[in-house]
């Protein structure tokens, strides 16, 4: 009885040791993964920051004004002025598309030629 108990105890200790060992390594792996992810996030953030800065730099009002001046021939962009506002009724409606003919009306002259030759 005592021997069995000792054997079980030993096995239990070994099992617990094995479990602790595994958990430890799993934690280490998770921490390493988090570190890698943080590094990736950091790199992505840095990239995003640079892209945002570049976007802001390319869209700075001075440059946009210069570009609008340079391309005035093609685009004809002017600063927004009070005259630029219009009323809704000044906007022309797009021409309505023609509806398809669903019930054609038979005209008396439709088959006139055939009728004539048939006579």
């Amino acid at each position, binding site marked *: 009885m005592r021997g069995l108990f000792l054997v079980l105890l030993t096995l239990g200790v070994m099992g617990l040791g094995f479990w602790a060992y595994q958990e430890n390594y799993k934690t280490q792996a998770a921490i390493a993964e988090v570190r890698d992810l943080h590094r990736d996030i950091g790199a992505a953030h840095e990239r995003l920051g640079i892209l945002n800065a570049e976007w802001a730099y390319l869209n700075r009002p001075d440059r946009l004004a210069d570009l609008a001046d340079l391309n005035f021939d093609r685009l004809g962009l002017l600063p927004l002025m*009070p005259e630029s506002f219009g009323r809704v009724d000044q906007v022309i409606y797009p021409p309505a598309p023609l509806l398809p003919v669903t019930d054609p009306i038979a005209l008396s002259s439709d088959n006139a030629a055939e009728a004539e030759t048939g006579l």
Partner: protein
Amino acid sequence: MIRTPLRPLATVLRARAAGENPDAIEAANKARRHAEMADRQRRRAEGRLLVLGLAFFVAFGVIGMRMATLASSVPEEPRAVVAGNPIIGQRADIVDRNGRILATNLATHSLYAHPRDMIDPARVARELVEIFPQMDEEELLADFTGDRRFLWIRRQISPEQMQAVHDIGSPGLLFGPREMRLYPNGPIAAHILGGASYGREGVSSAEVIGVAGVERHFDSSLRDPANEGAPLQLSLDLTVQAVTEQVLAGGMAIMNAKGASSVLMDIHTGEVIAMASLPDFDPNNRPRAPTTGDQSDSPLFNRAVQGVYELGSVFKIFTVAQAMELGLVNPDTMIDTQGPLTWGRFRIRDFRDHGPELSVTDVIVESSNIGTARIAMQIGAERQRDFLRNLGFLEPTQVEMVEAPTGRPLLPGNWSEISTMTISYGHGLSSSPLHLAAGYATLLNGGTLVRPTLLRQQGAARGPRVISEAVSARSRDMLRQVVTRGTASFAEVPGYAVGGKTGTADKPRTAGGGYYEDKVIATFASVFPAHDPRYVLIVTLDEPSEDSGAEPRRTAGWTAVPVAAEMIRRVGPLLGLRPQVDSPRRVGVTLTSN
């Protein structure tokens, strides 16, 4: 186990036959057995000792090895949890009200040198100067060949420069990562943003600290990692700010002014939509503060916040509004404007003679100093001071800039009767254009106090009431009439119903008392649209002179007003204000209570 008997029968019989004592056999056997037992026990004890010794040896060995590794390795915190994101530790961005970037960070490199590791300092110095033309070769060589061990060469370099330095190939030139503050819009909103520089510097990193403006005011919260890089949102509108600065620069050039400032403020929330001060600077390359001369001539000087000026006739509306609030006058009360008005040794004159009397409305429309001074005498010094205190004119503005406390209004030491009279038309009390914007916003938004702010607000927080709604509406009506038939006729922008007041104040002499004859501060304080106020715009020109006529014209009506009108024309549509050419509500018809 076969136990050897102590008295084996065969041996005993044999011993009996031989006549020996069989007990001797038993004793001998017993002794042998005891010796065997002793042997066994000794071996066991020895084995135990060995195991115990081994256990102790291993235990002490492990402890010793652990101590050795701990002693020889870099200390490291045991990590059980991973807290937060350690990456977003950099300084937060600053964005405008629509989320457009005003200030951000860029990862660059710094360049430093270890002169001891250099093989050919002369060549390194020569090639460095080719990359950085602003450096001095002689000086560099002296530094490299001297007894310095460490030397900063450049605080921040571009990737191209870094590659070029790499190509020099000297082991003594080293790079460190460096974060750089970038203002992508250049000089736009320079005074508000301020600028940044490096605090504590190390080879591997450097602290970016704000040196002026909102960068300095919000320095700790911008650097606080707990915010996780959440951007600071200002109330500015980048597009409106850019247009404002463009128009103001043009106006300043046309009007030959040496400086200019403008403040555009939301009349209900106190949000500063655009605030410009010219001349300006590029915060990416912030110039040093001048050590000699007048600080206010430096581009770093923010005229809109730090500059306190006697702003002139724009103050008249405060006097008239207070008199109406107190019930002393109504818009049609006739005021004696016969000049000059003599008070002790002082004489108050008007720009031109307005005849014997004018109605209160016309005192504002025609801008009569004498009329306003007479109204102020009815109000009295005490009540005037209290009213101006309520409007915030006696203290620096609370705007979120580190320079705000330096814009402290200059008040008369003794608020005498003559001070009351001069302050009523804007002389004898100096305040900043931002003060004026906040005062106009408070007066014209319906009468509730407005505090200027640079942070985006969610909805209008109504401040304590300063004047009644009816007086506010009547003041707006008067200001509208200044534009339609008074001194600010150039301010008429079709569709925007601009109302405003001009102010032309002689500049006080810097040395000694008195005023310059030919130097003025021209101000136009306006509100638009007058029937449904949304924005307050203040335009101030420093020493303008409009020279298209026979003689130079310096009054605000000829200088500040056209600039302000152009600004409203450009800015109004950008603010989403649709011009109302046929206003359904006639301007000038306002609610009155008596």
